[in-house]
């Protein structure tokens, strides 16, 4: 039996790197320290594809890796406009080749950012990003605010590892020295354990943030008795608490990015944090979902200048979210092929997209069958990153951590698959 310690969990943007895994005869015997989500990600491999497959007359037929990769290269090199989508559940090494493949074929590359924190990125373009690594919060923060997110369901160890419960250098008494505020439209599990829960009416976050900023700037007098379902005195108290915090940290989720106002909500939240820095120390962090969605934004930004939704059809990177982002490109029916790695768009995109997907060749690279498989014409199973393959991922606060490998497999890694596809497409385009 081998015990692997400090294993990195490849599930969510927390990238917890204190997981212990016991392995015997190349099988996982036990996983310690992981949350329910991480545990199932590391252990539950109930369904795997056995081999690559190509759909013929509606039926999936098993083929070799070489045949599948050649088929993919044939589709990509003969298409005029391919969307390369996904990338949040894969390594930076594979992402980088994906970006170059999109460049090589003049396609569009986008990742799940556009349907999670895309609006946050748009807001950052406009007003900035007063962020921090999570350890700064752990060591210093005495006010933690979660807005429009439910970490106990989506990032279960976030509070215990990074924000609320751990002892920090300047917070030796841990949670006793911290105050936890949750702002949401419903009383989630996280809201229930907060020192203070503030319930906001759906689609009213923008107004509430505005009210907070107005109070902070000394315009309490213009605030009506209730804003977005929140009594004025609660808002005034919250502003006082924010101003008097030694170190405040605001975390926000899809409750702000997906509801009415979208990027405007985030813009306002960022401005609130910037305003607060005139009084005290305050930071802001988006609760990124997939374990390497952040990594894609970084790799894409350094390779192309832009963080997601990049269109290479002009021969150089072009970026216009709302036009070059996945849902928009699919809905317009621009595409003649769809390439998916490390994501399941059919399970996450509006139904109108499914119809479009059924009309074009779809290539799927993933360890597991998923909803997108239903539309896939070529399926290439890959090794599970962080279990069977190593590589780089970036935590929600942009800290890079290297995923470990502790199970041997015959499945090719995403990086290897991408490399082979790239080489084959390059050969075809040259020839």
């Amino acid at each position, binding site marked *: 039996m081998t015990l692997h*310690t*400090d294993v*990195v969990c490849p599930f969510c943007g927390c990238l917890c*790197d*204190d997981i212990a895994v016991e392995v015997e005869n190349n099988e996982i015997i036990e996983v310690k320290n992981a949350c329910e989500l991480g545990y199932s990600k590391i252990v539950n491999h109930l369904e795997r594809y056995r081999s690559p497959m190509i759909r013929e007359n509606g039926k999936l037929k098993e083929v070799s890796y070489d045949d599948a990769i050649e088929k993919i290269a044939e589709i990509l090199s003969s298409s005029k406009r391919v969307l390369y989508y996904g990338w949040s559940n894969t390594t930076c090494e594979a992402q*980088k080749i994906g970006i*170059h493949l999109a*460049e090589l074929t003049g396609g569009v590359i986008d990742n799940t950012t556009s349907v999670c924190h895309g609006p946050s990125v748009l807001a*950052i*373009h*406009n*007003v*900035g*990003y*007063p*962020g*921090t*690594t*999570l*350890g*700064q919060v*752990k*060591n*210093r923060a005495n006010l933690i605010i979660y807005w429009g997110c439910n970490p106990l369901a989506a990032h279960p160890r976030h509070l215990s*590892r*990074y924000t609320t419960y751990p*002892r*920090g*250098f*300047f917070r030796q008494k841990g949670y006793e020295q911290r105050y936890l505020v949750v702002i949401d439209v419903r009383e989630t599990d996280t809201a229930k354990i907060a020192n203070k829960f503030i319930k906001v009416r759906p689609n009213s976050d923008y107004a509430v943030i505005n009210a907070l900023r107005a109070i902070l700037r000394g315009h309490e007098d213009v605030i009506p008795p209730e804003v977005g379902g929140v009594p004025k005195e609660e808002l005034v108290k919250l502003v006082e608490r924010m101003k008097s915090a030694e*170190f405040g940290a605001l975390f926000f989720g899809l409750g702000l990015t997906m509801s009415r106002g979208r990027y405007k909500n985030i813009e306002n939240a960022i401005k609130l944090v*910037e305003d607060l*820095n*005139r009084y005290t*120390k*305050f*930071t802001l962090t988006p609760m990124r979902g997939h374990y390497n969605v952040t990594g894609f*934004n*970084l*790799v894409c*930004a*350094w*390779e*192309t*200048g*832009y*963080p997601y939704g990049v269109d*290479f059809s*002009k*021969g*150089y*990177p072009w*970026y216009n979210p709302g036009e070059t982002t996945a849902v928009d490109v699919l809905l317009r029916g621009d595409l003649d092929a769809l390439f998916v790695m490390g994501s399941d768009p059919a399970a996450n995109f509006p139904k109108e997209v499914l119809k479009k997907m059924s009309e074009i060749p779809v290539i799927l690279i993933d360890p597991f069958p998923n909803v997108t498989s239903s539309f896939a014409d070529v399926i290439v199973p890959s090794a599970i990153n962080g279990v069977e393959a190593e590589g*780089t991922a*970036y935590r929600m606060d*942009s*800290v*890079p*951590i*290297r995923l470990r490998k502790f199970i041997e497999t015959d499945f090719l890694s995403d990086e290897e698959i991408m490399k082979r596809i790239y080489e084959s497409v390059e050969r075809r385009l040259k020839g």
Partner: protein
Amino acid sequence: MRLQIKNGVVFDPLNGISGEVMDIFIEDGKIVEECKAERIIDASGKLVFPGGIDIHAHVAGPKVTSGRILRPEDHRIGVEKRWNGIHSGTGFSIPSTRVTGYRYARMGYTTVIEAAMPPLEAKHTHEEMVSIPIIDNAALTLFGNNWNVMELVRNEDYDSLSSFIAWMLRTTKGFGVKLVNPGGVENWGWGKDVDSIHSKVLHFDVTPAEIIRSLAIVNDRLKLPHSIHIHFNNLGHPGNYETTLESMKLVEDLKGERQSMHATHLQFHSYGGEKWKDMCSKSEEIAKYINKHEHITADMGQVIFGDTTTMTSDGPMEFSLYKLSGRKWSNHDVEIETGAGIIPVFYSSKNAVNSIQWAIGLELGLLIEDPWKIFVSTDHPNGGSFLFYPYIISWLMSEKRRKRTISRIHQAVNSRAILGSIDKERDFNDICIMTRSGPARALGLHKYGKGHLGVGADADIAIYDIDPKDVDPSEESNKILKAFRLTHCTIKGGEIVSRGGEILSSVDGKTIWCNPYLRNDEFEKIRKRIERKFYLNYTVSLSNYPVFDAYVPNPMEIRIEVS
């Protein structure tokens, strides 16, 4: 390939060659005495320099990419199409990685030092350096606000401090020791700064002065090729020249084989006055001190008029700039270690302060007499893009050109700066020193084949289409500008990578890093010492912290043996 560069007008200051017409032979990526060339490059009437070395630029890593994400508008310009296997890219002040490498190479630069690597995110810096083609990169690891450093400085435990620095350089695959606003960035963790080098860092009972001196001592003990590389406290504040002088004096007695301190982007640290209203140049005082002492080298940190992006680990400074400009602001604190701030900026020639800043950089480049002590930089992208180095060269070489610019900008430049009264002009030899040989020597890289053209040196060479004997730089500064923008050809590691601006071959650059000698027991001791605290304070495990070999596929490791 074996190459012969024939009849070039060669400058090689480290070997005492100044404008001599001669041949250079290249074999296996190195300069050799002579060889049977497969290819001859006719360089008659052309200027031959060693490849350029940028001693201080922000080209790779977390804050550069934060800047890219902050500023999509910067990427609407500087667009380059994919062509013939050469990658596309975008961006002006913060170009994407691929075109960063191409642009340096086109300009004849072959080595660039990334000025600030946060240890916790060092993998990111390395990933980007690997994505920058052609040029060799090295990264300076940030130490000035590290908790372990401050604690060991407070205890005056220099043995452990040197072990720690050695361990960290090895762990982060860093090249040298960087300090940014020592103590001030730690205080920024509470939204504060330090106001002098003698004020205490909150909770750590240590002063910036103590941090600076201790790190300089330890840096020299470890015999690192480069000295400490410092961004002083109080950057960009009127009246900060006193802090600068005080900081330089801290290590006056430490002169060894090389300088004991590299003062980076000195322009930003040479301000007099009390407020922006009366801010003025103090370059004369700074230059006087450096001229009299041998322990300082510096780079200019020249400001260029126009739009750019400022980015530094100096979080509190960027926030105060944000309060002035009110545009947009990104910040990124890094636990236990450092921070970062980014804002867009527009240096306007109609603005008094910006005009004075522009003058101060050039004043330093001229008044610091010895070109081995002052190097060309814009602190890219803080003062402006590295693409403007040819402008700086043309200003340094021509009083007439400077006068022309002075006449077009805010006239505070005449009352609160002194550039207009300086008639000194740099010659080709000076420029060669200030852009390659000088930085090579200050970095200690001349011992490892950089910055010169002697036998055994790396064949990193820039050939410019200008004949020094045929041009009067003072009068014909446009010719200078044009010549230095694009090389006739650039050779990197013996390969012709660029010709007349066209990238011919996108070779991989190397990652240069220093591995100071540490006995195994010392290594274990320091690891043990920080292990427990690491577990308590960091949010990653110690075993996941290092930059693994996978991140440095093309290393140039400098092993330092201590006798």
